[in-house]
């Protein structure tokens, strides 16, 4: 896997991420698995200086991106000058080392 899996309701087409057992819009239980598109738009972000134990850095930019197919997801924004509404390209990389294990997630540039 080199991206996230999101879920599209087979009844009402509502797009969800992360997973729910019942559609947030209509309670349907069948979903089509979908993946983020290559391009997305930044909805909001923050530059975090005080990070949790195990992340030895300052100024990590975390934001919410909306993809062209409607998925919304959090990820790391690799930009020195983030702006709401900016267009971003989707990547996949190590976002955190937890208990010695490299954890992969969404990154954007």
């Amino acid at each position, binding site marked *: 896997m080199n991206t996230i899996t999101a879920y599209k309701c087979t009844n009402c087409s509502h797009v969800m991420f992360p997973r729910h057992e019942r559609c947030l819009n209509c309670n349907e239980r069948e979903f089509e698995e979908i993946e983020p598109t290559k391009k997305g738009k930044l909805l909001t972000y*923050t*530059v*975090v200086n005080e990070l*949790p134990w195990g992340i030895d850095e300052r100024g990590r930019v975390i934001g*919410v991106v909306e993809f062209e197919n409607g998925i919304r*997801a959090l990820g790391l924004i690799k930009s020195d000058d983030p702006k709401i509404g900016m267009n971003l390209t989707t990547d996949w990389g190590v*976002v955190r080392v937890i208990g010695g294990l490299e954890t992969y*997630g969404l990154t954007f540039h």
Partner: protein
Amino acid sequence: MRPVVISGVGMVPFERRDEDSLVDMLAAAGLGAMDDAGLGDRPVDAVYVGNMASGLFNHQVSVASALVDRLNLMPAAADRIENGPASGGSAIKNGLLAVASGYHDVVLVVGGEKMREVVGPRATDIVACMTHPTAEYIYGVTLPAMAGMFARLYMDKYGITRKHLAQVSIKNQNNGLLNPYAHIQMKITMEGILTHPQAHINNPVVADPLHLYDCCPVSDGAAAVLLTTTELAKELNKPAVEIAGVGQATDTHTLQERSDPTDLKAVTIAAERAFSMAGIQPGDIDVAELHDAFTILEIAESEHVGFFEKGEGAKALESGETQIDGKLPINPSGGLKARGHPVGATGVAQAVELVWQLRGEAGERQVKDAANGFSLNFGGFGNNVLAFVFRREA
């Protein structure tokens, strides 16, 4: 349902309490509430402990069982109740329902957290465990980061400035100076945290646009309320304060799945439920304790619970309406900003402050003629919220 009242309250000052274990603090606050009520040797039917993460912070679980042992309340029922930063509110709600239903007559509710046992970045990590494990936590998101992303949208939408946020911290830290139980006892000025060219040295960015003085401190502490029936309250020491309304509501785990991330729906619904149960309106409230874990939240919550229209909360703040001597005092205790936020304790500490206010025992920070109080305890990032209406017994 029969009416439920608070007959006694207790609290230990919130601060860094290296000498006390979590259970030491719970015991001191619990005993304080029993003694305040003058309960004597009357039995306590149940003990509910609001606590978020004793297993992670203190390597101790089953803390409610430990507490009944310390207070010799056996064979009382004992449960720990966890709902993140709203654990205290959830514990009060469950105590209220137990007495209201007639199943119990006397319930001791104690909220507490000992967070300073671990270093700061560990505490940040433990608190971040309430976020979604694979959609949020892995990215290093923190609660200040969630609040930062929310603040950016909310400030843009409603024209809120950093000056408004600073006004919340200054007001609440001034109130905290009048509260001997508050963690932060320090006067701050607009110059020192915002307008001076070097203010950023005092007040650095935590998760922009939020700075240090937009965030509550990390504290140790515990608070307790003794819930009883109106009949028993008549035999006890103190004037009873009725919990006239309670409401709870939830929202999606992640912020990004809300159709409008600036809309704190669970806050609105919890408050509506509490007001409806109490049979009063937001305009009837004389004093409120809101969950200002971040300054932006005091403004946003004051609007979502119905005190002000959307976009008007900052104006009310600016005009002094929410000061202790204003039309609707908000956070006379100092709020989470100054009193501190030992997560499991907060919902109970809010109730304790409102009981002191409604009994006229709040000393220098007393709100004049307060009859109806309101509290809001905000769990997760607005995904599990409790609201309460408190009423002075006539």
